């Protein structure tokens, strides 16, 4: 079916999210809590768009609104821009020192906050990506706890988690860098738990916790000596690629 986005017609599949259709066609809709690997959370509300369906005109989040009919979408109407600006302003007051938020503020023409209560010291914007990442890995070491203004991301009872494998996926997906990972002397500390790191079988650099290694082994069936650090893995892939090209050239 065809849907209209900002006046142009685009092909869309039944059930496809508006955001995916837009991205495929290079229409920019800003997002915060959306990653391609962890889509459809609908938490940050930055990706709101207006949907016109018959007489109905409503605001929806494009990351999780499935296309079911020939709708018309406005991604950047005045109404939407105003609300997005408010959302950025609200978030910036919650995480004023985060570079990420500063960047967004600039983008939306917002200057220093004068009226809202600004909370310093915490850069987390509760986008939920870390929790989602941990869940997707099947670890469930962290979760959001409490509710309302006291909501935060935490391990159970803010104690070191028994199930955490120290993989750092949560910190990796965090847009504001608010999850602290300390790495020195062959040790990694995250969420109040310290892990011993193991060296890369190829370059010898410490890179993985024993728990994560076991997890990767169980998932992939690879022998420990085949599990390399990111850099060596890339190099190896590069070499393989090179060999392939060489083969082709020889033929």
């Amino acid at each position: 079916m065809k849907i209209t986005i900002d006046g142009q017609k685009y092909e869309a599949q039944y059930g496809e999210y508006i955001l995916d259709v837009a991205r495929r066609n290079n229409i920019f809709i800003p997002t915060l809590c959306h990653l391609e690997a962890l889509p459809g959370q609908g938490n940050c509300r930055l990706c709101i768009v207006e949907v016109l369906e018959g007489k109905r005109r409503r605001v929806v989040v494009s990351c999780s609104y499935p296309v079911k009919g020939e709708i018309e979408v406005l991604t950047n109407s005045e109404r939407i821009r105003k609300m997005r600006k408010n959302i950025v302003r609200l978030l910036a007051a919650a995480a004023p020192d985060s570079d990420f938020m500063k960047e967004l503020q600039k983008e939306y023409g917002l200057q220093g906050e004068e009226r809202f209560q600004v909370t310093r010291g915490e850069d987390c914007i509760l986008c939920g990506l870390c929790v989602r990442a941990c869940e997707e890995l099947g670890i469930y070491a962290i979760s959001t706890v409490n509710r309302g203004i006291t909501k935060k991301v935490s391990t159970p009872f803010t104690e070191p988690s028994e199930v955490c494998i120290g993989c750092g996926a949560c910190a990796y997906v965090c847009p504001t860098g608010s999850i602290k990972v300390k790495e020195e002397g062959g040790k990694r500390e995250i969420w109040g738990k310290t892990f011993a790191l193991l060296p890369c079988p190829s370059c010898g650099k410490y890179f993985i916790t024993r728990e994560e290694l076991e997890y990767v082994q169980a998932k992939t069936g690879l022998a420990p000596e085949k599990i390399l650090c990111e850099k060596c893995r890339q190099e190896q892939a590069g070499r393989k690629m090179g060999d392939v090209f060489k083969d082709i050239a020889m033929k």
Partner: protein
Amino acid sequence: MVFFKRKPVKTVLVCCGTGCLANNSLEVYEGLKKRIEGAGVRARIRPVTKATGCNGLCERGPIVKIQPDDIFYCGVKAADVDEIFERSVLNDEIITRLLYRDTSTGERVKSHRETEFYKRQYKIALRNIGEIDPASIDDYMERDGYRALKKVLTSMSPQEVMAEIEKSGLRGRGGAGFPTGVKWKQCERVEALPKYVVCNGDEGDPGAFMDRSIMEGDPHSVIEGMLICAYAIGAEKGFIYIRDEYALAIKNMTTALEEARKRGFLGQNILQKGLNFDIEIVRGGGAFVCGESTALMASIEGRVGEPRVKYIRSVERGLWDKPTVLNNVETWANVPVIINRGAQWFRSIGTEGSPGTKVFSLVGKVKNTGLIEVPMGITLREIIFSIGGGIPRGREFKAVQTGGPSGGCIPKELLDLPVDFDSLTESGSMMGSGGMIVMDDTTCMVEVARYYLQFLAEESCGKCVPCREGIKQMLGILEDICAGRGREGDIDLLLDIGATLQEASLCGLGKTAPNPVLSTIRYFREEYEEHIRNKYCPAGVCKELTEFYIDIDACRGCGLCEQKCPVGAISGERRRTYTIDGTKCIKCGQCREACRFGAIKNRGRRHEDNH
């Protein structure tokens, strides 16, 4: 031939609802039971859970009713047991001093039915409450219980059942007002199996207790309603989600489920008609947001009670992603009556767009507080002034807050507004689950808005940005205004952020959260402006903006204010006049409450602008 008219067996009903229990009604029940059984009298005694304040009379509990004469005693103590037994059970005398005194007429009345309070009510959802022992399935069946279930199983097809409910125009009593019959049909149409039937008993609005009353006092009506839906949509499993604080509701519902199973109303092959259905109770942890349908389902599944986006509705993918019908307790309690008496009859009550009745918990600055069930379309004026008996202490009505914490405040200009789903929404408030809080002229509307936002800031699930951060900032601004730190432009900013919350929030909680602010700005804008510009709280509530003084022309020198003042800020001479020492006064307002001559007045305090 001579016929002896047999004297009817007397039934003594002792309220054992939460409110009455707190006032030792159990002692009264035990005492009367012992007397009646000991004397071998032909009388029945039954403990009855009566909704706390269901007739507005439970604030005068414990309540004892004697049938068939419909004698209504209130404020009964264990010491009254002997007298009640001797005079009203053995004989047909009435003990005048225990009768209820009508607040409007000041007269003692024999039956609560004779009161102004009761006359205008129409009971459908509360039909059995206070009349039956909730632990007795026989009591329920005596009053047409499970007759509707038999009717649908023996003579109606699922389609006919859904058509009947749809025709009745019943709308969801949890607040949103979605047509119940349409919801059932949508769910029935989805092909996936299994399907679930859920009852939302996570009543969270402060001051609202209609659902609790029904679950405590008439649990079988909810079960029967759910059974009828299960038959209609083809579900085999149901859940009743009750917040754990409702201990008695959980207990009575558990007993009711067991009884229903024993009688073959739940389980396999119900009434030999091939219907399989059973219900499980799930206890909620008391988070306000779990009353939101998708958060409630997440909670039943054992996940964090957070709502999800509802672009695919629960009737398609609800509990465990299966088609689910979720209705509120009061909605379920309406269903059996509609089946028994027909859609036509139901439509004859209430209005065209909102047929039937609605239960409200009427509280606040009103003479008769409690649970009331009234036909839709009744005006706010009738509810507050006829049923509620008006505002106590001769004060003036200022506003009524409907729809719970995220409802809105309706001013006196709209007192003749008919109460139904659409009119309330149009006025900037909402039906909600039926909370109704009456406010008088000593209520500050800015402070009211601040109070509700405080509640919502704590109860928002915190998942989406507009709701979590928006409520927090709106609350901060309101706190500033109440403390005299309001700034020019604050009202517009509140309106702006409020509009973003309404549109961009994830669930109903966030979308309606700005209502208390937006509706008070809409109707009481000048009160906000007084706070911001003149640093003056007209109602004399915001402490930083209030100074109490005694109007010497009105003061009679009775000295009551001096007695009431907790900090000794008032001094003077009897029969002359009194003064308040502003440096000591903590602005609690007790003197103003106490003064019979309206001599205690409030004025603004000059504040330096601290921009």
